[in-house]
């Protein structure tokens, strides 16, 4: 399941919903991305996105993860709008019978999300505001999944 929303999320409640009534899940991995203040340089982060394509990309990425690993359930929640340091940006949860699939799928989802989901961050602080530039390391992180098939 995927969601794009302005509101914050409650990780405990999300995991509770995800495994409600399920007796086959043995491992749950959750990743939360949060806003850093970068030593005082960032006071606000505005997240813009491409409504329609964002949801389509997140669903595509999730389907890809489900085809690579035996997942019992998965969830991606990404926030938009104006956030502040320590606010949550993104939540990825994966559930499987054994931990390896959940760990790998969660990492894969984040790596792909960072290079293909159409979000753009604009940081503001005492020095003014600027669009965040893409990190080449993120491309490398996503590319490695192409080299290594799911194990």
């Amino acid at each position, binding site marked *: 399941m995927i969601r794009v929303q302005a509101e914050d999320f409650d990780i405990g409640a999300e995991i509770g919903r995800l495994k409600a009534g399920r007796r086959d899940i043995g491992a749950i991995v959750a990743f939360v991305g949060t806003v850093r203040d970068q030593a005082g340089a960032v006071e606000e982060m505005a997240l813009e996105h491409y409504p329609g394509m964002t949801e389509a990309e997140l669903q595509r990425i999730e389907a890809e993860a489900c085809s690579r690993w035996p997942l019992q359930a998965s969830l991606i929640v990404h926030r938009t709008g104006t956030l502040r340091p320590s606010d949550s940006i993104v939540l990825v949860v994966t559930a499987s019978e054994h931990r390896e699939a959940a760990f790998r799928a969660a990492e894969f989802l984040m790596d792909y*999300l960072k290079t293909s989901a159409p979000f753009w961050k604009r940081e503001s602080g005492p020095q003014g505001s600027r669009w965040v530039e893409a990190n080449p390391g993120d491309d490398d992180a996503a590319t490695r999944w192409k080299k290594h098939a799911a194990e």
Partner: protein
Amino acid sequence: MSTRLLYFAWVKEKTGIAAEEVELPREVTTVAELIAWLKTRGPEFDHAFARSEVIRAAIDRTHVRHDAAIGAAREIAFFPPVTGG
């Protein structure tokens, strides 16, 4: 048939618009040709697409390369490399 063009992040700031409906010239058949045509539409567009190699494109909400054919696209978007997560 008109095509919907969308601009995001700093591409939108530079063009000064978020969305528009345009009639594409018949000779514009690829994303690269569309960018070249957009650059002729005024200084804002010339500025926005000056470093066209860094700009990403999507046709009907799917990522495409600049050599992609436009075909019967309804919606074409231009944006910087994504920075979510």
